[in-house]
């Protein structure tokens, strides 16, 4: 009866915490309703991050069969879930995509409360669940419109972690079987799940060797947890879990094997599973995050090795972070971070099973090298540690007056603190494309003709969703073929650009979706092609696909990175480009002040720190036309003040395809047609070749 009552209380806590998380996550919905530019077609625009574009595109593909999604995409399960939800709830796909994160990400409260319950700290678990559900990077990566696998990755990871804790605590193999089934699902759901589940298994093995060498049941549980790592079909793994679990339960009850033998088996299995994980490439993804390669290389027809820039080192979320960023993203404050760490260590000291909680904390620390996304793992753990510290102090003085305040005060303030940050963050968010951009894309890039959109890879997945066209690079595939887009954008010769794009798009179309650059380099020789396209001697294939170019203001901040990709490694760069945000414009004094630079408009002098440079021209662009031009001297260093928001500086690229199209709408009409040129977006079409 008491057990049933406790289960009832846990259930009530879970329901309460879930509705709390759901309620506050919908604040973004109410905020979006106040912005007409966030709404299109009677709905709030669904895609608020590029990642959401992928899963929404998969769902849309299943609903409409447009055929613009490459077949190499592996994480399709979330897209399928969105498709089924749309199909059976009869809700618009946009609404399902936008609101799905609230319903899925709020599930994080379930494992946190259960972990608290299992550790005998139900109140700590409950308040931690409230705080973690809206806290820092967990919220930043799972808010409405952020429909990525992360909305279920963390609930799944922490539920698997819970099964480890409960297996250790209750010494019941059935929980390990449930955990193994969840691990299997996690592997199917998320392509990078294997290093995480392997990490959990490793930690569990270390726990056994350190603290539970005489617990034979935990050794058997280890074998069950190791099953999902086997390099066989998921169905066979599932069958193996169901077949082996009862067998091991019987063996464990009859104590057939001595603990020493089991210890030996686990000690041997640890390196063996490590070897399998390494050989099968399970750890490859984790390693690529930590050791980012600098270049991609391939062999040319001539035998020469050609190198191009690597992307992972330029992806913001995969770039290592500082300690300050780690503290901010994982806890929001150095005090919470430090107290949370102390509390976590105290918790591990008092309850050995909590040792498993150290893994997500360590993954959080690894973000220093691997990137900001990994701080998310530490968010709930630091909160649990922080609240446990105050719970422990409360218990120490529980006989004293007002002892409860010592725990409930900090707990309530912590939740309020994270809610405050959530609210501030909500005000900084906006959809990936605003209403006018969605309107332009829907109108011009959904034509009947088969075609491609050439733009930087950040736009790939969202464009798949809103258009019926393909892209050659996207948010998941951005290595060799970045060169095609970058070279297009930074080439001065528009006739060359027309021939270059026609050639590579038609070649890519034959190989879709695989990279085309290494293929043509091996077949024709990259230097031969470039030279031939430059002087017009290379025969350009006949037109089978329409080619569009899409740009909006988001591409401006990427320009310095794109420029790096526009040259082969052995080539010397032609010029440079930089961008700065405007702080102040004083036309009377003739000063434009940026965050890093200052411009003397009267004399045409640019100041960057103590360094001074003479500029040739200064253009004022309102987003559509050049409203004013200052001409100083015949110099190729040119500055553009764009929408009074950005200062873009460029040396020798002012005549390039990108600058001429984006700022001046000045493309050669023999080759290119302007489809849309508004403040919000610029769309062009290749017509000449």
């Amino acid at each position, binding site marked *: 009866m008491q057990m049933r009552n406790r289960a009832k209380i846990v259930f009530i806590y879970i329901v309460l915490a879930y509705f709390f998380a759901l*309620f506050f996550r919908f604040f973004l919905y109410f905020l979006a309703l106040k912005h007409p530019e966030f709404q299109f077609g009677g709905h709030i625009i669904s895609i608020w991050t590029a990642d959401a574009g992928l899963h929404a595109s998969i769902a849309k593909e299943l609903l409409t069969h447009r055929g613009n999604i490459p077949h190499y995409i592996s994480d399709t399960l979330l897209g399928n879930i969105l498709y089924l939800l749309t199909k059976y709830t009869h809700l618009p796909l946009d609404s399902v995509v936008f609101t799905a994160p609230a319903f899925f990400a709020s599930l994080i409260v379930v494992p946190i409360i259960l972990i608290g319950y299992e550790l005998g700290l139900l109140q700590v678990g409950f308040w931690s669940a409230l705080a973690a559900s809206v806290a820092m990077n967990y919220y930043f990566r799972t808010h409405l419109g952020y429909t990525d696998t992360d909305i279920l990755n963390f609930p799944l990871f922490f539920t698997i972690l819970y099964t480890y804790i409960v297996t250790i605590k209750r010494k019941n193999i059935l929980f390990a079987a449930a955990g193994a089934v969840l691990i299997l699902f996690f592997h199917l759901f998320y392509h990078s799940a294997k290093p995480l589940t392997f990490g959990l298994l490793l930690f569990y093995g270390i726990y056994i060797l350190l603290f539970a060498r005489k617990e034979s049941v935990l050794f058997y549980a280890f074998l069950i947890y190791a099953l999902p790592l086997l390099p066989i079909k998921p169905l066979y793994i599932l069958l193996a879990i169901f077949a082996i679990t009862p067998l091991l339960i019987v063996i464990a009850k009859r104590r057939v094997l001595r603990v020493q033998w089991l210890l030996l088996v686990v000690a041997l299995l640890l390196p063996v599973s490590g070897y399998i994980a390494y050989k099968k490439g399970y750890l490859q993804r984790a390693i690529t995050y930590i050791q980012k390669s600098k270049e991609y290389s391939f062999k040319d027809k001539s035998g020469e090795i050609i190198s191009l820039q690597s992307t992972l080192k330029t992806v913001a979320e995969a770039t290592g972070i500082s300690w300050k960023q780690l503290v901010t993203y994982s806890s929001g404050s150095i005090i919470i971070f430090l107290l949370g760490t102390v509390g976590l260590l105290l918790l591990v000291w008092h309850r050995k099973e909590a040792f498993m909680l150290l893994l997500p904390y360590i993954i959080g620390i690894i973000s220093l090298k691997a990137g900001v996304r990994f701080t998310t793992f530490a968010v709930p753990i630091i909160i649990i540690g922080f609240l446990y510290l105050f719970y422990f102090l409360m218990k120490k003085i529980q006989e004293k007056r*007002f*002892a409860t305040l010592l725990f*409930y005060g900090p707990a309530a303030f912590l*939740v309020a603190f994270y*809610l405050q940050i959530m609210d501030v963050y909500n005000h900084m968010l906006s959809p990936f494309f605003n209403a006018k951009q969605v309107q332009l894309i829907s109108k011009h890039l959904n034509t009947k003709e088969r075609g491609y959109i050439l733009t930087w890879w950040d736009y790939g997945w969202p464009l798949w969703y809103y258009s019926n066209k393909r892209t050659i690079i996207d948010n998941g595939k951005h290595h060799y073929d970045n060169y095609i887009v970058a070279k297009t954008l930074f080439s001065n010769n528009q006739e060359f650009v027309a021939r270059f794009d026609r050639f590579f798009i038609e070649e890519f179309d034959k190989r879709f979706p695989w990279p085309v650059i290494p293929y043509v380099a091996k077949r024709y020789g990259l230097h031969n092609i470039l030279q031939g396209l430059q002087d017009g001697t290379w025969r350009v294939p006949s037109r089978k696909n329409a080619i569009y170019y899409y740009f909006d203001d988001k591409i401006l901040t990427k320009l310095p990175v794109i420029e790096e990709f526009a040259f082969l490694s052995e080539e010397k760069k032609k010029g440079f480009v930089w961008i700065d945000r405007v702080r102040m414009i004083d036309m009377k004094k003739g000063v434009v002040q940026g965050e890093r630079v200052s411009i003397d408009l009267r004399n045409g002098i640019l100041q960057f720190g103590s360094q001074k440079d003479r500029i040739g021209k200064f253009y004022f662009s309102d987003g559509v036309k050049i409203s004013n031009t200052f001409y100083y001297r015949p110099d190729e260093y040119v500055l553009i003040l764009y929408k009074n928001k950005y200062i873009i500086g460029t040396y020798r690229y002012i005549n390039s395809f990108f600058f001429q199209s984006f700022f001046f709408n000045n493309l050669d009409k023999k080759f290119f047609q302007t489809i849309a040129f508004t403040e919000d977006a610029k769309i062009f079409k290749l017509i000449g070749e």
Partner: protein
Amino acid sequence: MRRELIGVMFLMIGGIVALWSEKFVPSVYGVVVFFIIFLFVDSFKKLKKDKKSL
């Protein structure tokens, strides 16, 4: 459990007030202060009750 229930109730009321008044920070922190006052009064009542039973 009572404290947890009341705590969540206070926070959600704070959220509703924040939505209605468009003043997030005072609403949410305001209810936290109310919650702490509640805990204070609750402890005080319990103390009185304990004294009486003695």
